[in-house]
């Protein structure tokens, strides 16, 4: 069931009044109605691609009941139009709740972007976290919204120059908590590497790592370098700049007593992200993880050269799952991202 309100050449105050009215009306007509109270999700998108963005969000919003404020940007537009929607699912099951889905679409021009916070602010639910996501760039809008948002959802992968993407992430993270989809793409790899070295007899190997090789999709250097940055920051390595070579990036990081070779190797693959990670130690032992059906194919090589192979189970999250994970991260805080980001920046400086 949907209630819709729309107005051309409107104002934030009128939109806010309409939203209050829609909520009130829905409370009266639907006894089981409860408004979504997870977070405010503010999305800035080019108007012609807003459908694509909404499709990406559709699955995410099913399990993330939030107020969505979609700012559809049309170059040259001078006025502000708005459509507000209040929808609830069919609640035929007795006692079930009808969790509201609140959506506001603002049609606005690039001229509005530097002061976008003043337009969006009245439309946010108070006391809830606000996350901003701008998949088509518009940094001036993100800068404006970072005055009222606590979380910025970014994808360092979107920036063609990886160094610039990481610098932008670092600059944003000075003001807001950054959730980086490129970082989340490396999460299963980080979890599995942590697990691989978790048995106490194997933890000592972490201090002997001599080489790290990360294979990644050509355009996913950010995820690969963030993974290396994570290892460097967690293991106390001093990272040095990577240089182009052998089709990828190569360089070193300085561990306490030795040098660690770091190699990033681009691969042909369908999904963005990583394809494999291999870690070798000076004593000849090695651990590797490779993308495989139903999880990651794991290999461990002992000092005697014997190899063991097995599959670590886990479903592929797909890009929609990663986006959903990104939104969910709005409620969490990962203390390891910023140190990993700093180390990654040093590698691509």
């Amino acid at each position, binding site marked *: 069931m949907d209630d819709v309100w729309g107005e051309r050449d409107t104002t934030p105050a009128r939109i806010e009044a309409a939203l209050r009215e829609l909520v009130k009306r829905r409370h009266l007509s639907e006894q089981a109605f*409860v*408004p*979504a*109270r*997870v977070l405010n999700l503010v999305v800035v998108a080019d108007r012609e691609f807003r459908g694509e963005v909404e499709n990406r969000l559709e699955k995410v919003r099913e*399990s*993330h*009941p939030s107020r969505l404020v979609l700012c559809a940007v049309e170059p040259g537009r001078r006025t502000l139009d708005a459509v507000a929607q209040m929808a609830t699912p069919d609640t035929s099951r*007795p*006692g079930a*709740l009808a*969790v509201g889905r609140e959506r506001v679409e603002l049609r606005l021009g690039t001229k509005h972007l530097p002061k976008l916070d003043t337009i969006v602010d009245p439309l946010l639910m108070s006391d809830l976290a606000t996350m901003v996501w701008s998949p088509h760039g518009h940094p001036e809008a993100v800068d404006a919204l970072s005055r009222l948002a606590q979380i910025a959802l970014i994808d360092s992968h979107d920036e063609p120059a990886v160094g610039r993407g990481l610098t932008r992430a670092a600059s944003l993270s000075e003001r807001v908590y950054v959730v980086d989809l490129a970082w989340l793409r490396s*999460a*299963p790899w*980080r*979890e*599995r*590497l*942590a*697990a*691989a*070295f*978790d*048995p*106490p007899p194997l*933890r*000592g190997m*972490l*201090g002997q790592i001599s080489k790290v090789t990360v294979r990644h999709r050509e355009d996913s250097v950010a995820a690969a370098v963030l993974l290396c940055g994570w*290892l460097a*920051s*967690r*293991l*106390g390595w001093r990272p040095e700049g990577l240089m182009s070579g052998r089709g990828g990036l190569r360089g070193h990081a300085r561990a*306490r007593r030795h040098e660690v070779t770091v190699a990033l190797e681009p691969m042909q693959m369908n999904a963005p992200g990583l394809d494999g990670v291999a870690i070798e130690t000076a004593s000849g032992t090695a651990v590797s993880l490779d993308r495989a*059906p*139903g*999880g990651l194919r*794991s290999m*461990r090589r*002992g000092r005697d050269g*014997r190899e*063991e192979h*097995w*599959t*670590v*189970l*886990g*479903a*592929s999250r797909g890009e929609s799952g990663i986006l*959903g994970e990104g*939104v*969910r991260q709005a*409620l*969490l805080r*990962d*203390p*390891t*991202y910023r*140190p990993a980001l700093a180390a990654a920046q040093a590698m691509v400086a």
Partner: protein
Amino acid sequence: MTAVAAAENPLVEGLERLPVPATTLVIFGATGDLARRKLLPALYNLAHEGALPERFNLVGISRAEQSDDEFRALAREAIGSFSRRPPDQLVLDGLLERARYVGFDFGDAAAYGRLGETLSELDAESAVPFNRAYYLSTAPTFFPVITSALKEAGLHRAEQGDVRVIIEKPFGHDLASARSLQGVVHEVFRERQVFRIDHYLGKETVQNVLAFRFANFMFEPVWNRNYIDHVEITAAEDIGIGSRAGYYDNAGALRDLVQNHMLQLLTLVCMEPPASFEANKVRDEKVKVLSAITPPTPEEVARTTVRAQYSAGTVAGVEVPGYREEEGVPGDSRTETYAALRLEVHNWRWAGVPFVLRTGKRLARKVTEIAVQLKPVPHLAFQSSGSLGVRPNQLILTVQPNEGVSLSLGAKIPGSRMRITPVNMEFLYGTSFMSESPEAYERLILDAMRGDATLFTRNDEVDAQWGIIDPVLQTWEADTSSPLLTYPAGTAGPPEADALLGGDRGWRHL
């Protein structure tokens, strides 16, 4: 920057899924209802999320003779039917590929050698030592049988790796049988190896009782006898006994829900803040609460408890038979389908505060909740005529179905007069959190494999629970002549239970 220390793994900081040691999980009763509906789907969902140990084997055991492939087919069907998410075939294939099956009678001690061979084969396939976790998902009569047989076969210990045993409820039928079972279990395993399941503790909303109490400063000052009038704990079901007549008629409502789940809820409401969320610190505090409840004398049982059985009635518009007419139930059964009791926790915080617990089948509604009723305001400045007036604040922690917390407050009715009515301030899980909550069994299986016993019941806790319930059972069972109270199916239970609250208090409407 973190220096690498042999004693710690610097890579785990900040990770959502922590490493779990390599484990072989052996499920006794692997083709049973619990395994099919809960355990196998829970394992699948853990695998789907990448939360299982990176090295994991599953061994199913039951009496039926069948091949590994037949067991895999059964597991595939169960996961397809009962998983909270549609299975990803690749992950499911991967999980089942590591599944083995051994069929034997649990009482056949010699057959445990076959299990031992299977475990040795699995161990030999890897250079890494595997922990072993035996999950006893069988009828309780087999708990001591299996435990002893594991010892006889030498499977209760492993040269490398830890061995754990996970025991389903009910842990005992009364205090004596619980102690006897405990004796057998402790002859084989140390307490730190024993994980007694009470799946309520794996529920997010039950754990939230602790978060609510110990992560919010505002409630602690009023969380005591000075401000709280009484506490109601309700676990009401609208369904009957289904196909569980054999079990239920032996157990009854008191054993089925009060001895375990409802006393767990009571301890979470009453316990003192633990110094840390470490297993024994939490469980120490829970045991202190149970120890502060004096087991009732037979006279007190008559005064402070009510039992009843449902008669034919109407539930949600459908006519349903009475308990004694249910299939498999003896026509003269005296098993209670409703139990209510009033308990008091004799310590400084709670002295004099009644805790009233009620549970029943075929009640008007399905709801599990804790209702904390505060005392009325000491002086009323407002006239109450023409309105519902000022009611004492009530805090409701709903465990299911609409999980959340609600606080009733007095508010002014708009208008020229000062008239007050109760209104609700609500927090609902479904609107405030993202993504689906994991099933209780997912959390509990994972915790057991990690060796974290915080959400499992310790031996002295079980003992203290039975210590409270046993006198009630004995008194009820000794009384074979007085007529058993009944309540029509679809109602809130017998009106005689109202008297348990004392004074002019009444149960919350179901």
